[in-house]
């Protein structure tokens, strides 16, 4: 019965979403406050109903109710509890339900905490959110209904793809979706402004926290996905330029641009039209990401839902929302007033450069992702665009951005002094140069560009520190004064500097591991050993082990360095009996110089095992960098200056009494 109530709640949510879309739109047109006011309870009810449906589905998973087809297809009674729960969104139907749940969560947040918004704007925003919910709820109920039942129910399920039975992947989709769907807030605010034909002064302030929250979660979600690929796919790669990865990376690039342009809009009332357009583009890319992954147009690790009927449906949703928003933009944007002038060399100017480079880089990724699809559709040829293309297009665009990055925060608004900023960055430049020289000296046989890359990373970190040092007058004022300034500096400033430094940390990790990675592929019989990066690995043998829903062969490798043993690694191969497939669990030792990464391969004819050993220098910095960026975003989000006070509302008793009965 829980399952059926959940199903009904989902359909009721569709009904509520239609009301949430239609009545407030009519209300704001007619200036009818009663119709307008429906948006708030509708958004809350929608969230509660979808939340209930989600919990109902989760209950079915947890109790292994195989009369629900979705549970039967994607679960198994022997699965550990964590994966029974994550199995809810580890499949197409459930993940779409999670998608609308998060959408409704954002809508409910705007209706509950958006009391400082003008009501018309709030109602329009919620109406646009409601229309997105209508589209996706229809999609779920008609083509991907998770509440379909089987009678009689089978006694056990078909299991979850073993590759997905992993802690990092259990939480990767929720974060990714919070990111994707969070950008829907920026989209709804943009469309609401276009419907209104006006942009309020606080528009950017209202939009920025949502965008920032979405951006943080997307950063973390992408990092988790890459972390998972690193240790689970068994060859130590962390980014593949796979279309599915690009699908999440493009909204990230556009979202990063949006964050920065909204900053200009908030502080200086400039770049308004561009920011609106960017908000539309960012969410369009999120929709496209959903389309690419969910429609099955790609065949890759992630694309586990393949069904053309669904693809056409999502394509239609995309067409309506992207096309509709762009048409609305073309029609209404001329109504929006431009404001705030600035000189090319200024904080605004630097943020325009940032936007320019980020959007062009995003376009490069878009071309690299869609070109193979278009080619396949037109000629039937299947090609794959991989790292070489992106190294040639994306990297040259991003490197100038990285070099320019520390300058931005040091320039003044409106009209800045590039020379003064450069002088302040002298120390950072000197440190980076010193690092480049040291790295060159250490790695005399190339690759030659790598030390420069490390230098850029250091430049970013020291540059971020320079900004804080400059703002608190670290070297000009007394200790007491500096301390006072440190405490008074807005959190947003710390957040921004942290996020920039996080990029630097990540760049160092990316460059080091790409340039100086070591690899050995050997056949080892028990007792054999192999040397890599100063470590000696001795293979002790392989033993069987039985897990909750798999059997595995676990290898034992004793790692020693300089003759003394210091750790033991256990890479394994897992065989999942229900799903009839195997996964590789790599053994990873995490040292300060980098990761030692061991993969157990197949047994060869002579009894030896093929073993792959990698040394990935400084690879952890990639994910530590992402964490720092996430943390920077969180610090910035906690800045109370982002909250705008509302004018006093003259909600008098008289108005209440005379309101239509």
């Amino acid at each position: 019965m829980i399952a059926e109530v959940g199903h009904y709640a989902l359909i009721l949510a569709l009904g509520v979403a239609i009301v949430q879309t239609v009545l407030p739109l009519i209300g704001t047109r007619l200036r009818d406050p009663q119709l307008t006011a429906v948006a708030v309870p509708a958004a809350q009810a929608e969230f509660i109903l979808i939340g209930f449906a989600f919990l109902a589905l989760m209950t079915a998973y947890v109790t292994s109710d195989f009369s629900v087809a979705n549970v039967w297809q994607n679960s198994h009674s022997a699965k550990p509890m964590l994966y029974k729960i994550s199995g809810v969104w580890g499949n197409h139907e459930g993940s779409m339900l999670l998608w609308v749940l998060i959408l409704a969560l954002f809508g409910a947040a705007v209706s509950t905490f958006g009391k400082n918004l003008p009501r018309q704007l709030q109602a329009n925003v919620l109406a646009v959110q409601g229309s997105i919910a209508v589209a996706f709820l229809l999609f779920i109920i008609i083509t991907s209904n998770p509440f379909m039942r089987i009678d009689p129910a089978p006694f056990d399920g078909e299991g979850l793809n073993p590759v997905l039975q992993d802690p990092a992947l259990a939480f990767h989709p929720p974060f990714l979706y919070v990111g994707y769907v969070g950008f829907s807030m920026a989209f709804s605010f943009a469309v609401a402004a276009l419907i209104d034909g006006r942009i309020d002064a606080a528009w950017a302030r209202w939009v920025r926290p949502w965008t920032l929250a979405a951006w943080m979660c997307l950063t973390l979600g992408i990092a988790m996905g890459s972390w998972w690929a690193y240790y689970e796919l068994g060859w130590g790669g962390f980014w593949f330029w796979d279309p599915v990865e690009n699908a999440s990376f493009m909204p990230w690039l556009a979202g990063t641009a949006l964050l920065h342009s909204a900053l200009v809009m908030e502080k200086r009332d400039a770049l308004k039209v561009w920011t609106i357009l960017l908000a539309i583009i960012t969410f369009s890319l999120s929709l496209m990401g959903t389309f690419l992954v969910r429609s099955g147009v790609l065949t890759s690790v992630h694309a586990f839902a393949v069904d053309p009927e669904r693809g056409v449906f999502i394509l239609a949703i995309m067409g309506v929302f992207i096309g509709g928003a762009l048409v609305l933009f073309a029609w209404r944007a001329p109504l929006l007033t431009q404001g705030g002038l600035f000189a090319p060399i200024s904080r605004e100017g630097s943020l325009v450069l940032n936007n320019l480079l980020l959007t062009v880089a995003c376009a490069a990724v878009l071309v690299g992702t869609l070109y193979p699809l278009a080619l396949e559709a037109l000629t039937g040829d299947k090609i794959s665009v991989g790292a070489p293309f992106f190294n040639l297009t994306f990297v040259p665009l991003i490197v100038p951005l990285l070099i320019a990055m520390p300058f931005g925060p040091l320039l003044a608004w409106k009209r800045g002094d590039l020379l003064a900023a450069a002088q302040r960055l002298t120390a950072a430049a000197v440190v980076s140069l010193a690092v480049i020289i040291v790295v060159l000296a250490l790695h005399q046989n190339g690759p030659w560009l790598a030390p420069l890359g490390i230098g850029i990373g250091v430049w970013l970190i020291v540059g971020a520190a320079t900004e804080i040092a400059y703002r608190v007058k670290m070297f000009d004022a007394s200790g007491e004064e500096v301390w006072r300034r440190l405490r008074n500096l807005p959190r947003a400033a710390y957040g921004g500097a942290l996020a920039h430094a996080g990029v630097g940390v990540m760049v160092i990790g990316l460059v080091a591991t790409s340039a100086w990675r070591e690899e050995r592929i050997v056949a080892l019989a028990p007792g054999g050993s192999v040397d890599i990066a100063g470590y000696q690995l001795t293979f002790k043998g392989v033993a069987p082990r039985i897990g909750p829903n798999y059997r595995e062969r676990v290898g034992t490798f004793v790692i020693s360095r300089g003759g003394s043993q210091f750790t033991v690694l256990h890479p394994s191969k897992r065989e999942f009996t229900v799903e009839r497939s195997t996964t590789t669990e790599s053994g990873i030792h995490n040292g300060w110089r980098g990761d030692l990464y061991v993969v157990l391969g197949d047994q060869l004819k002579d009894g030896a095992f093929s073993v792959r050993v990698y040394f990935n220098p400084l690879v952890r910095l990639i994910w530590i960098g992402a964490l720092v960026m996430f943390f920077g975003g969180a610090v910035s989000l906690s800045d109370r200056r982002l909250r705008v006070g509302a004018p006093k509302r003259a909600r008098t008793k008289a108005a209440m009494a005379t309101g239509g009965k």
Partner: protein
Amino acid sequence: MLLWVILAGLTATVLFFLLRPLAGGGGDEPAREAFNAAVYRDQLEEVESDRARGLIPEAEAEAARIEVARRLLAADAKKSGTGGAQEGGRPARAAQIGVALALPLAVLGVYLLYGSPRLPDQPLAARLQEPVNGENIAVLVARVEARLRAHPEEGEGWDAIAPVYLSVRSFSAAAEAYAQAIRLLGASAKRLSGYGQALVLEKDGVVTEQARTMLERALSLDATLVEPRVLIAIAKEQDGEYAAAVKDWRGLLKKDGADEAWRAMVQTRIANAEAHLSGQPQQDGTDMVSPEGLRGPNASDIEAAQTLSPVDRQALVESMVQRLAARLEQGSDDLPGWLRLVRAYTVLDRKDDAQKALARAKSEFAGNAQAIEQLDALAAELGLKS
């Protein structure tokens, strides 16, 4: 019934909250410019506090202050009282009635289309407690499986479930269960024999080396067992040792233990093997290993064909074509079969037969334009008159 009460309650609650604003007053709110003015005041304060804290230089602060102040003045000039509280009336009432009627009906309609209101929840734990009505093997199996997952070291459980798996044709599960039972309880003739059978059936009737070892061990423990003997003989046949296989089977027929089902099967196998020995392979394809009619590709045929001399191979092919022809001549609408036959005759250089078969096929498919088209296409390809 309870379900409908809950659904009705849910709908009513949602409608109540949804429609409440339509019944009350909308209240009024300040004009939009008032929001802007509030923001500008906020920004002024911010500039002021930044200046006071020394975060921005005096000149910059002054410039910012002037700019914001200009906007504030503009906003203040535009703002004229409140945005006004319009009286909601007719539209609200219409919406109220419309939503209250249409929403429940539409939702109910969609739910009846997609939902299964009669089906109760069926959590696994509860289902395993249900009384068994004797027929439902699946419940028993699920129960034992659940028990075995919790206590994988209980050999008795594996021992009990293995033959069940075998009888429901879950051969690999059966092999696994027998292996566990043997590991935990030790080898017995029955377990080894079952294990061997499961291994053979899992491989579609091919007796692997591992299976043969198990079967031989079973026989060494209990020489009266029939199944291992049959399978070992089949193994010999699959190795091409027809004489040895025939000898085994004849020995088996002399025993009293063999019941009728086995007898019939063994007799066919003997006939087949002897046909192989005399260079005239079997008459039909129903020769596979089988307690309950083991099926699978006729591995021995293919193997035999590979080891035959060219002359023998020709004979084998001829006999296969013969069989196909005999089947089709009795009046068959098996189009692929006919196509294959025509092609086979052509390959065997029996043009006349091919022509006859083609004509026969076309009469068989008279009126079926598609089939005729395919036959004509084949004829054209092979250079036959059609």
